[in-house]
């Protein structure tokens, strides 16, 4: 039954302190997560923002406040910027 609910607690099946465990309930649907994974830089971001302290992720914070999350918002609160300028 619990799988029906948003997982708001750390991954049940793993060590809470294991930095590779995804505790953030959004991780599965997070587009920035996929973007970082595709670019090959996911691991360090995931360890800092998608594990036990996912509350520090700027994307999660905005979503929890009911605000629209900019697609280019990084977990750190910075926005992805492009060299070619904003088209």
């Amino acid at each position, binding site marked *: 039954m619990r799988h*029906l*609910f948003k997982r708001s607690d750390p991954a049940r099946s793993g060590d809470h302190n294991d930095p590779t465990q995804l505790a953030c309930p959004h991780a599965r649907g997070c*587009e920035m997560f*996929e*973007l*970082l*994974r*595709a*670019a*090959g*830089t*996911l*691991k*360090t*971001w995931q360890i*800092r923002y998608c594990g036990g302290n996912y509350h520090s992720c700027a994307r999660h914070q905005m979503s929890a406040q*009911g*605000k*629209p999350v*900019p*697609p*280019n*918002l*990084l977990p*750190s609160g*910075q*926005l*992805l*910027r*492009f*060299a*070619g*300028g*904003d*088209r």
Partner: protein
Amino acid sequence: MTHHWPWWLGGLALAGVALTHWFVLGRQMAVSGRFTAIVNRWRFGAPDAGARALQNASRADLLAAIQAATHAEFGAQEEASNAHASSTRTSESDGTALAALAPSEPSAAPVSRVRTLAEHAVFLGSLVLGGLFSALLAGSLELSLAPSGEIFASLFAKTPGGGALVLLVGGVLVGAGTRMAAGCTSGHGLCGVSRLQPGSLLATVAFFGAAVATAFVLRVLS
């Protein structure tokens, strides 16, 4: 009295429109989300320009931007750990996944397209047009200032302004409730339930249940 479609045609139409919405617009149909988007634009302003740039960015720009951001956040240690990680993991994580996403197109970002205010306004305005065409077809187009429906009138039209007040209050509950539940009859009821989404199943049972209860209360009170 307007003639309405039989149940089987109505069912076909609802499913057909939901499917068409997916094929033509690339999203699950969900109307209350458009209201939410409009209110969000009003409360929080227009989306950051970088959101659009993200959609249009080339693979190279995307990689560069992400690497720059990663470096800014974690410093040079990140590049070393990534180089190590890449050599021990599958190709999925060494940037070629980006290539696999959109090998020939300039846009490589696997992100949903941010919809513009104009799109939302056009959709809502088109709902109005749909109603207009329907009324024209049925020959029932009639500008009426009073709330329509005999049952509605018998319930609320006795006190002046009673009907308008009920519609207003009902509307507030609809607006607040659909945002709170993150969906309405189209998003949750049609699309969510048919995809067996737990939130949609619960929301749909809740709103149908509450509606039935309210309707019976109204009947008792009348």
